[in-house]
């Protein structure tokens, strides 16, 4: 455990090495918040609700979505393909540490920083703009929301780690990954709630794992997903995690057999 803790601390320090870059990086998330917050504020100027969302619910969705983008969608596993193609993986495989654990620890350090920054940014935003922010519907709802966020983080990490394994087959995996990230962000509800889309589009997106990263947890938080749906949401998240763990193991197993340590 101590070695993971040391790795966590080292990773934390490394990310704060160039502080100007870190601050700029965090400043980026504010652009999404500002554009969507003011878009919905303007849309709801003379209305009490839109697409089944009250004004307060929609603005809370935008604010909470900013937090969840930092909590769930921040990750550093996109560096894995370069690690494989440059042969740096060999060095890590020789260390007395699990490779997935190595990245999970670094990812946790990155998330901790992102979470802390996102909370500060959002607090400042709330202090200046004073937007409405609804709380969860009940204590049980808050607990289920926290659980679904935790599962969403694990699910995204597994998904992302699995994709990192594409580096065994090509050094150009950043292209498909960019494509995947764009698809994921929109289908996860990281820009707009999915249920404002036409029913057919919602149905297609519903088959994907992505809505369980942001949209469904936020539906629990806003009380739009009642207690009767909680088991289904959590069950789906657990199922998708299992699927990605299995796929990831398979992919990494095959990949490691192909690995030729080029450049290492």
């Amino acid at each position: 455990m101590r070695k993971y803790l040391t790795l966590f601390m080292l990773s934390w320090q490394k990310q704060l090495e160039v502080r100007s870059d870190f601050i700029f990086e965090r400043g980026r998330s504010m652009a999404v918040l500002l554009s969507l917050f003011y878009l919905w504020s303007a849309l709801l100027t003379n209305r009490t609700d839109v697409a089944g969302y009250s004004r307060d619910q929609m603005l809370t969705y935008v604010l909470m979505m900013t937090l969840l983008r930092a909590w769930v969608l921040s990750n550093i596993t996109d560096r894995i393909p370069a690690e494989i193609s440059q042969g740096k993986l060999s060095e890590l495989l020789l260390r007395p540490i699990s490779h997935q654990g190595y990245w999970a620890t670094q990812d946790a350090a990155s998330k901790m920083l992102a979470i802390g920054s996102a909370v500060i940014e959002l607090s400042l935003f709330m202090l200046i703009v004073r937007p409405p922010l609804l709380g969860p519907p009940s204590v049980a709802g808050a607990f289920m929301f926290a659980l679904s966020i935790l599962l969403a983080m694990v699910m995204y990490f597994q998904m992302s780690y699995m994709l990192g394994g594409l580096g065994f087959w090509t050094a150009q995996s950043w292209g498909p990954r960019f494509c995947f990230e764009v698809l994921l962000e929109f289908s996860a509800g990281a820009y707009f709630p999915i249920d404002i889309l036409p029913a057919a589009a919602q149905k297609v997106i519903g088959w994907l794992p992505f809505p369980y990263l942001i949209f469904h947890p936020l539906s629990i938080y806003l009380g739009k997903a009642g207690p009767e749906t909680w088991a289904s949401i959590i069950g789906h998240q657990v199922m998708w995690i299992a699927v990605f763990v299995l796929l990831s193991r398979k992919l990494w197993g095959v990949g490691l057999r192909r690995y030729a340590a080029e450049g290492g």
Partner: protein
Amino acid sequence: MPELRRYGRIWAALAHNSLRTQLSTVMASGGYLIGKLIRISFFMAYLLAIFDHLPSLKGYTVHQMVLFFMTFNLVDVAAQFLFRGLYGVKYLIEEGDFDKILTQPAHALFRISSMGVDFLDLFTLVPVGFITFWALSKIPGEISLVAGLLYVLLVANAMLIAYACHVFIGALSVRTHEFESAIWVYRDIMTLGRFPVTIYSDLLRGLFVTVIPVGVMVTFPAQALMGMLTWKGIVYALGLSVVLHLGAQAFWRNSLRNYTSISS
């Protein structure tokens, strides 16, 4: 004139190199291109879905909103196509290539910005063009020739402002050897122009037409095309771009005077 031809040949040679690099990484380039097209499609889908529930936004119809969104894409994509090389100033400095460029018989800024001509972005302009014409055909009233010419003039003006921003960030890297993320902050701030700046609060609106001129770059051209921009606004936009351009050039020269080589 011979000098212009010489620079034309330099640009063509560097653009040719970029194209060959992109063609040699088909999977990465393909994924990147598809991702960009997916992003535009999703934003369009969400925009149309929102306006299914609402008649207008601050007096703008859905087709006018699409025009703003497409103007944002046009300016953003064209700037990436032309100035992408300036994203990598810090990398050039770290690798020692910056020193080599400074000794070459071509203007360093021109040389660097032409290094990363991104042909993939040209492909994304095709759907942008089609959707723009579709939106224009749906907006009631004729678009006059003068309005069309003003649109072209103000988009060109936006490119000059975009170039000034790129030069300013490049100069910041020369001066500090940091701020790698600054260009991404610029890109994210640009995304605030997906919607007309009139939706933002008074303070932000003021900022977006002065210090962070995203409104001048995106909202003004679209407003001019729809006959909503006054002559005062047009003169202001042209004046601002000249001031920003001169300021950025002065900052670049000053940064070069203070530059210390670190890698050659």
